């Protein structure tokens, strides 16, 4: 049983690490904000879920496992909202260029 749990933890943590690294590469390589949001959701959904699941198997039925569950729920509820807000704000800023033009223009050209 012990060995089975350890093996399962290994598998989950390795899968989660794979997703985290893949998502980060996507965050770096994808072309624009909207597509990068997909990569971020990979990190926070699959990556965080699998890694926290693997850690929880190591913790067993303790307070720590409950805290890990809460962390997962917090990530699950807050991060999609945040990325949704990113997409919405970017959409609003892109559709109406004259809306706070003086704030948006330097943001687009600041790293030239």
């Amino acid at each position, binding site marked *: 049983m012990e060995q089975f749990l350890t093996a399962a933890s290994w598998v989950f943590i390795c899968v989660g690490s794979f997703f985290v690294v893949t998502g980060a590469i996507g965050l770096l390589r994808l072309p624009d904000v909207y597509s990068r949001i997909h990569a971020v959701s990979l990190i926070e959904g699959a990556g965080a879920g699998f890694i926290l699941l693997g850690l929880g198997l190591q913790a067993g039925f303790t307070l720590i496992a409950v805290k890990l569950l809460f962390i997962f729920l*917090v990530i699950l509820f807050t991060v999609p909202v945040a990325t949704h*807000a990113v997409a919405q704000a970017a959409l609003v800023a892109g559709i109406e260029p004259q809306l706070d033009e003086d704030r948006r223009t330097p943001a687009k050209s600041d790293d030239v």
Partner: protein
Amino acid sequence: MRLDLILRITTKLILPFIIVFALYVHFHADFGPGGGFQAGVIIAGMFILYAIIFGNFAARQVVPQPVAEAMVPLGVIIFATAGLPALMFNENYLNYNVLASHPEHGQHLGLIWIEAGVIITVAGSMLSIFYALVERGR
């Protein structure tokens, strides 16, 4: 202007958890990381999130600006009164051993008491600074 429906619903869902977590940080300060300052900042952050999502008018109805400003000195007063019972029992100021029948319980009670004062001061000052900044920005 009800564009941000998702934000409103999720914020409503998560606000009680934030305040319960802040109280956990406060009452659990004897055993884990955190304390009054951190809990106060988390509570202030919760009200700031409410003000950002639901508007300043709604937030000012929940915590009016005079209340937030009165919280700042109130916390210091609460902290200072934690030492007064010790003076009555001829002990040093801020000695919590006299607060309960058992000295150890008195210590825990005293820590929770003074950290309640810290929470009120910190949360009140963060909130009133936020209100003042936003009011100034109009």
